[in-house]
């Protein structure tokens, strides 16, 4: 059942001021990897394109393109400066 692989949506949790752009969560279908996800998000939310954030996949921060499979949860974490 290889075709199942990308049918499950990728859940995305958004943090900080990025939620002003996207809301606090969303899910997207047919996402193959994190680069692909970022491209899709930038298409859906152009204001996101110049924001700084890190991507975590299933609670692990990833810095290189990472394959997404069934039901991964992706978090977008922006830097905070306030103290």
């Amino acid at each position, binding site marked *: 059942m290889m075709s199942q692989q990308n049918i499950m949506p990728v859940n995305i*949790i958004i*943090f*900080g*001021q990025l939620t002003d752009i996207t809301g606090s969560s969303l899910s997207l279908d047919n996402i193959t990897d994190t680069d692909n996800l970022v491209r899709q998000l930038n298409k859906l939310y152009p204001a996101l394109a*110049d*924001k*700084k954030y*890190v991507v*975590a996949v299933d*609670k*692990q*921060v990833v*810095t290189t393109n990472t394959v997404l499979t069934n039901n991964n949860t992706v*978090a977008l*974490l*922006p*830097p*905070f*400066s*306030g*103290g």
Partner: protein
Amino acid sequence: MNNISSYERYQRQMILKEFGEAAQQKLLQAKVIVIGAGGLGCPALQYMAAAGVGTIGIADHDTVALNNLQRQVLYTVNDVGESKAEKAASRLQELNPDIEIIPYNVRLIPQNTLSFVKAFDIIIDGTDNFSTRYMINDACVLLNKPLVYGAVSQYEGQVAVFNYRQNEGDTAVNYRDLFPQPPKDDEVLNCEEAGVLGILPGIIGTMMANETIKIITGIGEPLINQLLTYNALNNQVYQVSLFAGKETRSLIPESEAAFTQTDYEWLCASPSRNAIAPDSPDSYRDRDGFEIDIENFNTLLTSDDITVIDVREPGEIPVVNEFIFERIPLSQLKENLAGIKSNTVVFFCQTGKRSLQAAQWLFDTFGKTKNIYSLQGGILQWKKFQKKQTT
């Protein structure tokens, strides 16, 4: 512990099974500095002083303002206009006269930061801006000191323990493994612009004190190589694991000397908009107009009659040895503009902001008689690009 009142003061935590007199002794011997005695620093300081952390430094150059009192709970209306470091120290000394509290009413800059970091065992970052946060992070990496990090925005806060090795040989992550480069100062709103719920830094600052106490005493599981995010509106806690990045170390000054030469304010600043005089259309040029991308820059490098100028201050890294260039730090550029002879001039700096400023100044002097460029993304992007090309 040498007096009865200490046993009485700390009794409630000393009777904890994992804690005991041994942990209390460790606290009393510990030296912790809190940088920034604001929303995060106040609660962190209160609980550490109460718990009996033996030596507490407080570094803050700011004075108390009325709009601080909504979250900076060590101060009162009578303190408005007074030094935060000194007021916090005297309040905490009343709470616990048996510990040493040292106020430093100074602004931390690269030239003095290392001496503060050296003098303490653990550094707590309660600052409110990226340039100081990156500076403190880099200092802790250089000097191998644990950094307890916390930051807030609106209703959310982050906590982490950076640069801490529980066992020798462990990998320790630092802030730059999470966010390698500082955001530009207009990329992320600060609390002044975005607002913050007063109790949020109270919660996050208290968590920072808790992490510090755990590191000192060795109890529990500190947030080592973890970033915890807390949302005050829905009480959701999200914890992610962090990993050391291969290139992180190359972003941090390689020596103490290089550190003191690094201009952290510049790294976070947007190019000064005042530099472009809006009412003089002849000298005005869109600031994007100077930017040259990496591929075009590399092509240009092969041509004659071109001068490439590094406008970074001495000692800034990364070191460039891949092409020929001159060095004129931005701080000395204005008096040296007339000496720039080539018809094509490319400026570069760390991220491409200072070089834009340099390009504008040169344009103000020579106008369209020269081809003036600023390397987009700076030398950091260029290095990254070159690396990609070779792998």
